[in-house]
C-alpha cells in the first residue's frame, strides 16, 4: 500500500508542478491592457463614406518620473530594459472592423538609418500617404527614421490579410528637451487606413532600436515595449 501511495503522490506532485509553473508564467506574461480606437463620426475615403475611429500612441526613448515603463515579467527583465524605448500607453491595440482608423503617433525618440529602405515608406494606408508634422508625404528620409509601426499577419489563412507599415520620423539629436529629456517639440505622424473583416494580427517596430546584435534584441523582442498585438474586432 505504501508503494501505491508513493506512486500516486509522485503523479500528483508532478501534475501540480506543471500546472503551477504554467499558470504562474502565463499570468505573469499577460499582454498589457488593450487600448481601443474611439469612434469619431464618419470620414470620406476612396471607398466612399465610412465610419471613423481614432487612436493615439506615443513612443518614448526611455521611462522617467512622468512616464512609467511598461510592465515587465521580473526584476531581471526590468533591469535589462531600463533605459530602453517603448510604446505608450499600451501595445495591445483593438480597432473596429470595416472602419477607417486614424492613428496619431507622437514620437519622442531619436533614430538613424534604417536597414531596409522599404520601411522608410508608408504601406497599407488609405491613400498611400501619411502626415508628418502636418505635411502629407509617402515616405521619409531613410536616414531619419526613429521607429516604425509595422502590422503584419498572424499565420492564419482564414483571416483577411492586413499589412500596414508607418515610419516614425526621428527627433534630431540637438532638439530642445524638457526636464525628463523628452523633446519639447516631438514628431507627430498621422496615418489613416481602412480595416477589413475581423482578425488578429501582430505588430512590431522594424527599426533597430534595441540591444545586442543588429540592435534587434531587448525591447524589440519584448511584447509590451516595441512589439504587440493588433486586433480588428467586429
Amino acid at each position, binding site marked *: 500500500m505504501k508503494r501505491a501511495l508513493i506512486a500516486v503522490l509522485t503523479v500528483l506532485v508532478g501534475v501540480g508542478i506543471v500546472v503551477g509553473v504554467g499558470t504562474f508564467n502565463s499570468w505573469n506574461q499577460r499582454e498589457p491592457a488593450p487600448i481601443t480606437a474611439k469612434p469619431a463620426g464618419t470620414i470620406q475615403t476612396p471607398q466612399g463614406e465610412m465610419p471613423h475611429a481614432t487612436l493615439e500612441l506615443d513612443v518614448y526613448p526611455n521611462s522617467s518620473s512622468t512616464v512609467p515603463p511598461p510592465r515587465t515579467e521580473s526584476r531581471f527583465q526590468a533591469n535589462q530594459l531600463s533605459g530602453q524605448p517603448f510604446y505608450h500607453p499600451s501595445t495591445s491595440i483593438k480597432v473596429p472592423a470595416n472602419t477607417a482608423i486614424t492613428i496619431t503617433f507622437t514620437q519622442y525618440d531619436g533614430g538613424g538609418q534604417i536597414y531596409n529602405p*522599404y520601411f522608410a515608406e508608408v504601406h497599407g494606408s488609405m491613400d498611400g500617404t501619411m502626415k508628418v508634422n502636418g505635411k502629407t508625404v509617402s515616405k521619409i528620409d531613410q536616414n531619419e527614421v526613429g521607429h516604425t509601426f509595422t502590422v503584419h499577419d498572424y499565420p492564419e489563412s482564414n483571416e483577411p490579410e492586413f*499589412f500596414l507599415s508607418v515610419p516614425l520620423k526621428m527627433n534630431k539629436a540637438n532638439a530642445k528637451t524638457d526636464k525628463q529629456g523628452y523633446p519639447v517639440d516631438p514628431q507627430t505622424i498621422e496615418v489613416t487606413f481602412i480595416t477589413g473583416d475581423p482578425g488578429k494580427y501582430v505588430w512590431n517596430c522594424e527599426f533597430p532600436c534595441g540591444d545586442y546584435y543588429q540592435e534587434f534584441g531587448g525591447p524589440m523582442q519584448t511584447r509590451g515595449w516595441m512589439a504587440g498585438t493588433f486586433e480588428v474586432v467586429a
Partner: protein
Amino acid sequence: MDTRPTGPPDEPEEPTNRPPSMHRVRNWLKRPYAKGIVGLTILLGILLAPMAWLILIPMRVTGAPASEIMGDIQETVFVFTLVSVPIVAFVYAVLVYSLLKWRKYKGDKVPEDESPAIRTNTIGVVMWTVMSSVLAFFLVVWGLIELAQITNNSYGTISADQQPGDEQSVIVNVTGQQWVWTFEYPQHDGVTTDVLYLPKDRPVYFNVTSKDVIHNFWLVELGVKIDANPGAITQTGVTPNKLGSFNLRCAELCGMHHAYMETSVEVVEGETFESVMREMGGGRTA
C-alpha cells in the same frame, strides 16, 4: 524434451532439375513458424502499403502540387514509402509472431533454457545484408537523380549574374528580416512588395538574403526552400504551374515573431502578373 519435428528428409531418387536451394526453402517453409512469419509479413505488408497513399493526403491538404518540384517530392515520398514497406513488415511480423506464439514464461521464477542457441545463420545474415544494401543503393540512386533534376528545375546552381534576363523569366530578390519578407523585382523597375506575386508557367529565380539573422524562405505548396543568410545570397528557383494563393513561411527560428513571419504567394496568369507590376509602379524594364 525436444518434441519439434526434424522435418521430412529430402525427396529420394527421382532425378530432378530443381536446384538444391529450392529444397532448402521448401523444407524451411515446412517449419511451424516459417509459414506464420511469412504470412504475417505479407499481411502486414498489405496493411502498410496504403501508407504510401495516405502519407500524401496531408501533403496535399491545400491542394495538388503547385510546381514540378513539389510533384517530384511527393512522388519520391510515395516511392520511398512503398520501398520501405517490406523491411518494416518483416521486422514487425517477427515482433508480432514473437508476442503471439513464442511467449511462454511469466512471473519471478527464472525459466529453463529451452530456446535454440542460434549464434549465427549465414543465409539469414547474407540475405539481410544484400537486401538492405540493395535498398540503400536504390534510395541513393533515386535520390541523386532526382536531386540533379530538381537542381535543374530550380536553377540552383546558376549565380545571379548568369541568370537569363530574358522575357520569359522573372527574377525576385527576396529579403528576409525580422520579421517581414520583402520582395524586389529588379526587372520591373525595382518594385518592392510584401506579398509575393509569381507568374504561372514562367521560370522564377530567387536571390535570397537576410538583413539580420538566418531565416528560411519556404514556399510550402511549391516545394521551394532555401535559407536566407545574412551577408550572403543564396539562390533557388521554381516554375509554378498552378494558379492560386499559397503560403510563404519562415522555417528557421529567427526571434520572437518567427511564427508570424508569413505572407502569401499569389500565382497569377502571366498578363495579370505584368499588370499587377505596372499598377505598383514598375513596368517591365529588363
